[in-house]
Every structure is written in structure tokens, then in C-alpha cells.
């Protein structure tokens, strides 16, 4: 058992699912799980963290923390870490976590294991494994020297535990003195898509160049909306201008790990496979039965996606309505 500090993440007053994954994994291993909760108007979120296993929530509720900045977060977290002296610190490998944690690791003069996909607690240490070459291989990370062990964990890698609403946590308000912040976020401009991000979604439906044009992605979007999926794309589809780069799955795009990945008209270039091979269940739909994607597929459908996807949408609708 050890003392673990989880850096919680919320946006617009909603906690991220990936925060629950970290708390759940720590609590399940019997650790004394502390959570740092930063933002403006976030105090009310503390008990939700308790439902997943937080023992104590350290809250910094301040107007200067309305938007995430690495400087402001570091100014709050560094003194907290010094007084709490946890043996393990964890954050999610999200746009916030990956931006913040290197700064903290440098301040603490310790190493950082980024984007871990496996994590186990061993005494006051952690054993972590992470992908390299976008998942073409994995490595174990050995921490050298002393000090807290810090890791960022890939979203969906650990799984969200069932919450227990009867659990409560101790809370403490942190004193916040931000001073001057050199790099300021002046505005957050919301994406127009109602669909989840490919890195966050439990289900991802991706299309390749076989979709032929941007308009045809509509059949994937409609199917995605039936099951709450995100829509991804291969590099070929992005390079052809069918989708924005933020939807690209692969070594030069995003690496995803959903519970279900449906590859439509994607042949399976090595750089794409690298980005989705850790998905729990993989479906491939392709006219070419020799396409490399079928080697990774749990369910392979050789056929025309333009015929199959609209029918699949209807079948999934029936299941959802049931």
C-alpha cells in the first residue's frame, strides 16, 4: 500500500471518465488515494470522486484556475506534493495531463513515465508498461533514483470502475496564490462536433480512402451516433482531405484504445495499425479479403462497406431500442 495522488481533470464542471479510471485502479490496490481537484466552481465535484475510491480530495477552487495552464496548476500542485509526499503521482495522458506533468516532474527532479497502458502497484512502487513506436513494441519503465514515481496513463487503458454512491471523502481547501502567470489562456473555443474525441470514446468507427469523399463519412457518422461512437480516419483519408487531422488514428495521428474499433475501408497500413492495435475488440469491413487489417480483426467482414454500414446501423438501432 502506498500514498497515491491523482490529478483530477474536469472541463466545464464535468469530471473526466479517465480520472475515475486512475482513482479506481489506485483504490482497488488498497492505496491511500488522494485526489487534487483544480478549477473554478469545482468544490461540488469532490464527492463524485469519492464514489470511485478517493479517500481525500484536495480542492483548489479559484477564478484563476478557470482555464488550465501548466503554470497555475504547477503553482498549486507543487506545494501540495511537497506537503503530502505521495509515493506515486498519476494523471491521464490527455491534452492537459501530457502538457502539465513534464513540468511537475522537472520541478520534482524525478522521471516521468508517459502514456502508460499497463500499471500495477507493488508496495510503494509502480510497475508500468508503455507503447513505443506507436505500439509496434512496448517497454517496461524503470524509474532511477529516489522520489515519487510519476505516470500519465492512456485513456481507457484501466477501465472505469463501478461507482459506489455510499462512499464519501474527506475534503480540504488548498490556499491558492497564483502570482503572475506568464502564458495566459484568453479563450477556449468549443469544437462544433457533438461526438466524443477519438481518444476518449469507448467506441471508434474509422474510415479510409475507400470512403471516396468527405460526404460519404456521413454513413459512419450516422452509425456512430446510434452507439455514441467517435469517428476516426486513416492517414490516407486525412491526406485526401476527407477528415481533419484531429480525427486521424495512427502513428502520426492519435493512438486510441477503445473497447470497440470498427475499421471501414481501411487496408491497415503499419502506421495505422500502430494507432489502434490495443483496442479491445476490432472489426474490419473491407472488400479486399487480403487486407492486413484482417490479421488484427476479431470480426472480419469481407464486403462493401456502402452496403453493410447502413444495414449495420439499423441492426444496432434495434439493439439499442431493445
Amino acid at each position, binding site marked *: 500500500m502506498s500514498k497515491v495522488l491523482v490529478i483530477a481533470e474536469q472541463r466545464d464542471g464535468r469530471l473526466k471518465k479517465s480520472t475515475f479510471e486512475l482513482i479506481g485502479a489506485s483504490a482497488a490496490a488498497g492505496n491511500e488515494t488522494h485526489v487534487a481537484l483544480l478549477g473554478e466552481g469545482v468544490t461540488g465535484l469532490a464527492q463524485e470522486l469519492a464514489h470511485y475510491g478517493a479517500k481525500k480530495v484536495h480542492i483548489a477552487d479559484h477564478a484563476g484556475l478557470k*482555464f488550465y495552464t501548466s503554470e497555475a496548476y504547477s503553482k498549486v500542485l507543487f506545494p501540495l506534493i511537497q506537503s503530502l509526499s505521495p509515493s506515486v503521482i498519476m494523471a491521464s495522458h490527455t*491534452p*492537459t495531463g*501530457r*502538457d502539465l506533468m*513534464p*513540468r511537475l*516532474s*522537472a520541478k520534482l*527532479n*524525478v*522521471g*516521468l513515465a*508517459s*502514456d502508460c497502458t499497463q500499471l500495477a502497484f507493488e508496495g510503494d512502487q509502480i510497475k508500468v508498461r508503455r507503447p*513505443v*513506436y*506507436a505500439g*509496434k*513494441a*512496448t*517497454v*517496461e*519503465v*524503470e524509474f*532511477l*533514483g529516489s522520489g515519487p514515481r510519476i505516470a500519465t496513463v492512456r485513456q481507457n487503458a484501466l477501465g472505469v470502475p463501478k461507482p459506489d454512491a455510499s462512499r464519501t471523502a474527506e475534503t480540504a481547501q488548498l490556499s491558492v496564490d497564483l502570482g503572475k502567470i*506568464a*502564458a*495566459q489562456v*484568453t*479563450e*477556449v*473555443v468549443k*469544437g*462544433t*462536433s457533438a461526438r*466524443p*474525441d477519438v481518444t476518449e470514446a*469507448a*467506441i471508434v468507427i474509422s474510415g479510409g480512402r475507400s470512403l471516396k469523399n468527405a460526404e460519404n463519412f456521413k454513413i459512419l457518422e450516422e452509425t456512430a451516433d446510434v452507439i455514441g461512437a467517435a469517428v476516426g480516419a486513416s492517414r490516407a483519408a486525412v491526406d485526401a482531405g476527407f477528415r481533419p*487531422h*484531429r480525427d486521424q488514428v495512427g*502513428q502520426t495521428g492519435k*493512438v486510441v484504445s477503445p473497447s*470497440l474499433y470498427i475499421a471501414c475501408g481501411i487496408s491497415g497500413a*503499419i502506421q495505422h495499425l500502430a494507432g489502434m*492495435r490495443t483496442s*479491445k*475488440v476490432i472489426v474490419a469491413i473491407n472488400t479486399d479479403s487480403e487486407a492486413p487489417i*484482417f*490479421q488484427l480483426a*476479431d*470480426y*472480419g*467482414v469481407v464486403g462493401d462497406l456502402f452496403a*453493410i454500414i447502413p*444495414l449495420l446501423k439499423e*441492426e*444496432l438501432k434495434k439493439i439499442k431500442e431493445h
Partner: protein
Amino acid sequence: MNIYVCIKQVPDTETKIKLNPDQSGIDTAGIKWIISPYDELAIEESLRLRDKNPGSTVTVLAAGPARVVESMRTALAMGADNAIHVELPEAADNNWVAKSLAGALKKEPKVDIIFTGKEAIDDGAAQVSQLVAEYLGISYVTVVLGIEYLPSGVKCKREIEGGSFEMVEASYPVLIAAQKGLNEPRYASLPNIMKAKKKEIKVLKTSDVGTSESDQKIRYKNYQLPPPKQAGKKISGDPAAQAKELARLLHEEAKVV
């Protein structure tokens, strides 16, 4: 302006990764090495900024073994003016690399702006940019899609999740980590490639930049290839039968919908 770019040399994306027999690392024989794609965006941005500000220079830095010089020559051929190679062992971690790059930058008379890629596509850790900035005590903005240059600093469009983005303002000196979409990197022309071969590359040792092996904070070990996947189920029939069976399997067997 004094403009700096930090780059990393990585295996080409099409590389099939093979491991050493003792699983201590990858077999680098036959690998085609390239500049990490996001770092190409950083180089391009630095050249455009220099060309808009007469009298500016672009200096490219890389830390690593001797092979990285080849990528620095490519950066020079794209148009960089100077190059600094910090010699480090192959297995140096992000912290040692970043501290060494920061050490090299501290020796420069004045640093106005530093460009990097948002992550390297080999390690994918996305640490070095932030670490370099932190060791220099300057601001950073990562995953940047657009930059407006102001007299005193920059206004950046930073990509976050779900297609949203943040507008971030920072004063010089600042480090900016580039995301795809920032620009379209140029190719080096043949004459420029020839000229770049003759350019001098400054070499620094760890003792010159004030780092040592004690700056290595993590080590990768026990490399593994992903386990081979068992053959999946092929779903046959006409499209209607295939769709129906697939939906059933996803619901009843895999329990993912």
C-alpha cells in the same frame, strides 16, 4: 530574432520494428532514419518567421548519437543557418535530452523563440518540449495549430480534445511545440542539400552543457512486441446477413454494444 529549433531523428513510420535478442532495445540495422514529422513543422515555422524578420537566424539543435547529424544536415538543407549537436548516448531519456538541449541553449547569447514538434513519433512521450522550457525558465505552448506573432510575444491556437482549442498568449522568450496543420513543410532542393553538406555543425559534449548520466531518470527495459492476435471470426453471407450477424456478435458475444 534568434530562432531555435530542437529536432529528433526517428525511424521512418513504415519501419517494421525488430527487437534485440536480449530485448534491451530495438534492432536498428536497416532502419531508415527521418526527422520526426512534427519537428519538420517546427523547422518550417522557424524558416518562415526568419524570412519575415530580416537579420534573424535559425539554429537547429539535436541531442543524440552520431547518426542524428544526418537529420541536422536535412534541416540545414531546408534552410536552417546553424546547427548544434549535443552528443548523448542512444538510451538517454527525455529528461537528460531536454536538460542537455537547455544547457546548449543557455550558452547562446540570446534566445527569442524555440520551436519543437509536439511529440516524437518513436517514443511518443511528449515530454522534451515542456522540459526544455522548464529548464530554461520560460513559457511553453504545446500542440499549436496557429501562431500570431506580436511585437512582445505570440498568440497561439492550441488544440485540445474534441475539436476544441485554446487561445494562449505568451511573451518572448517562448517555446512552441508544433501540431500538424501549423504549416506545410518544404522539401530541401538538391543544390541546398549539396550546400548543407559543407556547413559546419557545432558539437557539444555533456560536460559542455552541464549534464551527466545522473540526469537520466528513467530507463526502458524488457522490450516486447505486441502478442500475435488469434485469427478472428470471418462473417459471411449477403450484406444484410453480415450486418445482422456482426451486430449480434458485438452485442451478445463481445458485449461491447
